[in-house]
């Protein structure tokens, strides 16, 4: 019942996203076949007729929504012979693989580092980690990627600099992609853990002789992870759909690149298709997070109400 309600809601949101994106997209001047050198009017007319671009906008819109409803995202204008479904099917697995690896890296390293920083609060360990986290949050991924390539592909040539051919090729892009979320998760974990450790129930647990390790891992961490979990939902979707910058630098055939290039190309169907796909992924991730919440905190029920 709950899931059905959420899925129905997701469909409404997707429809709204399609409508807004469709409107915005057609508001940008130019079209998929406008080029520097003008096509002869007859050719232009044929091409536009082929893709129904000569029809009135509302009819194109109705047409698109009708097809999208049965998961047909239409043909690409720039890659003849390929549909948007093809493009997503080809490139999403690459981005998802890289994204999931970065995600697990970010969660694992971020939570552990956050716990360590909270444990060693106000010591040099904590300060070093916080400086590291501030750097991690503020250094853009393209700079980090360049530094990583310089260090590990040229100074010490132990890892490949680019392309996507096997496990070794994952390391550098995954690191570049994970750095920022790791730093963010670490700061989040540290502060919410320290907050949890200041609560009354921690004092009660201490009065029963519970040791520091158990206080942090058993009592405080579960309370402290809630904000981290809420951040992970959209993060997972963002990482899995790929990053334009990282994928371009490492020449990875992922989805992220299409997101940006399709807009330059006015490749209407690809823009819409990827937007829909990304929105769908975000909504699914948030749904997943909402299912996980009650497992972490029994006061939260599936309907999102907080009791007690």
């Amino acid at each position, binding site marked *: 019942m709950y899931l059905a309600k959420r899925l129905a809601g997701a469909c409404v949101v997707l429809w709204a996203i399609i409508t807004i994106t469709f409107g915005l997209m057609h508001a940008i001047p130019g079209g998929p076949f406008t080029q520097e050198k003008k096509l002869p009017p007859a050719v232009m007319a044929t091409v536009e007729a082929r893709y129904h671009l000569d029809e009135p906008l509302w009819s194109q819109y109705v047409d698109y929504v009708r097809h999208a409803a049965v998961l047909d995202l239409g043909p690409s204008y720039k890659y003849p012979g390929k549909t948007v479904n093809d493009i997503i099917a080809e490139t999403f697995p690459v981005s998802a693989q890289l994204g999931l690896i970065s995600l697990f890296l970010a969660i694992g390293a971020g939570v552990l580092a956050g716990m360590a920083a909270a444990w060693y609060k*106000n010591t040099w360990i904590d300060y070093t980690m916080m400086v590291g986290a501030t750097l991690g949050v503020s250094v853009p991924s393209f700079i980090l990627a360049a530094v990583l390539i310089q260090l590990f592909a040229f100074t010490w040539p132990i890892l490949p600099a680019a392309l996507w051919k096997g496990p070794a090729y994952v390391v550098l892009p995954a690191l570049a992609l994970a750095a920022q979320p790791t730093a963010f998760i670490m700061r989040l974990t540290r502060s919410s853990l320290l907050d949890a450790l200041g*609560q*009354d*129930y921690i*004092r*009660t*647990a*201490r*009065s*029963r*002789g*519970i*040791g*520091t390790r*158990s206080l942090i891992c*058993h*009592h405080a961490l*579960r*309370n402290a992870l809630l904000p981290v979990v809420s951040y992970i939902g959209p993060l997972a979707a963002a990482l899995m759909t790929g990053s334009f910058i990282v994928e371009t630098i490492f020449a990875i055939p992922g989805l992220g690149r299409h997101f940006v290039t399709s807009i330059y190309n006015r490749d209407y169907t690809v823009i819409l298709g990827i937007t829909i796909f990304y929105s769908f992924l975000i909504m699914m991730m948030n749904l997943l997070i909402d299912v996980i919440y009650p497992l*972490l*905190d*029994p*006061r939260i029920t599936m309907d999102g109400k907080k*009791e*007690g």
Partner: protein
Amino acid sequence: MQALLDVRHLTISFHTYRGLLEAVHDVSLTVNPGETVGIVGESGCGKSVTSQAAMKLLPAEATEYTGGQILWDGRDVIPLSETQMNRLRGRDMAMIFQDPMTSLNPVLTIGNQLCEGIALHQHLGRKACEAKALELLRAVGLTSPEKRLHQYPHELSGGMRQRCLIAMALSCSPRLLFADEPTTALDVTTEAQVLDVLKRLQAELGMAVVLISHNLGVIAQMCRRIYVMYAGAIVEEGTADDIFYRPAHPYTQGLLASLPDPAQKDKALTGIPGQAPDLFHMPEGCRFYPRCPQAMKACMTAAPPREEAGPGHHYTCWLAQAAAAKEALP
């Protein structure tokens, strides 16, 4: 008989952004095995700090033990490490807190939190722990204890939570229980029930109890000996009879005078004028003199001496010496 807990001249300060703040000044108190001792005083007078200091529960980085000793079984606990303290906490000494709403971990079941301490101190298996937990929940008078074991704190009422906290504190049969305003957050009916449970279990387990309260009624009902605290220091100590029938310190007298008297319903309620001093601007001399109806010159300049009013009945005041001086006049 050796005292179970013997606090000697304890002084505690906290690091605050305004500098070092002295919260407890030269406090001495003893608790003998099996007895119930009360600490009364207004909010912020240092009752809770004293008791939490005895278990070393105060935040370590902000607390400075500037003087005195806390002898547990004759051994000073101030220099002990956290690990050493953890061997005492829960097993030998335990504490129940004021607010049962926030004192239980919201994401763990009652059974989980109850069994944790039992497993830690008694090295029992899972089954044995659960059996013991059930027994405890029954002992504190919770209905359907099997169900409670698997419930979360938010599913229980305030009184039930406080019973759970008592069960947790008593899980390893401690020799001393600090009860820090255990009934302040509860309604009067529940308060009576919880106090009954405490009294009964104390008799059964033969443990000592330090009851901290600002409620004189609760203290009178439960305690044999009483310490009265004001502004971080003990102003009077004695048996319940001493304190309630022969109060020697003007502060204690003021406290008792401010109680409503059912026999004289028409009498207007009196209070002690003024308010407790700011710990940053403690008056020189006696801490109570700005509010004391019997203040003298001596009270403003020098700290009052500790006087004996009877066996085991002491108070810190200049009045006795003033009276003696008057008598000495020809």
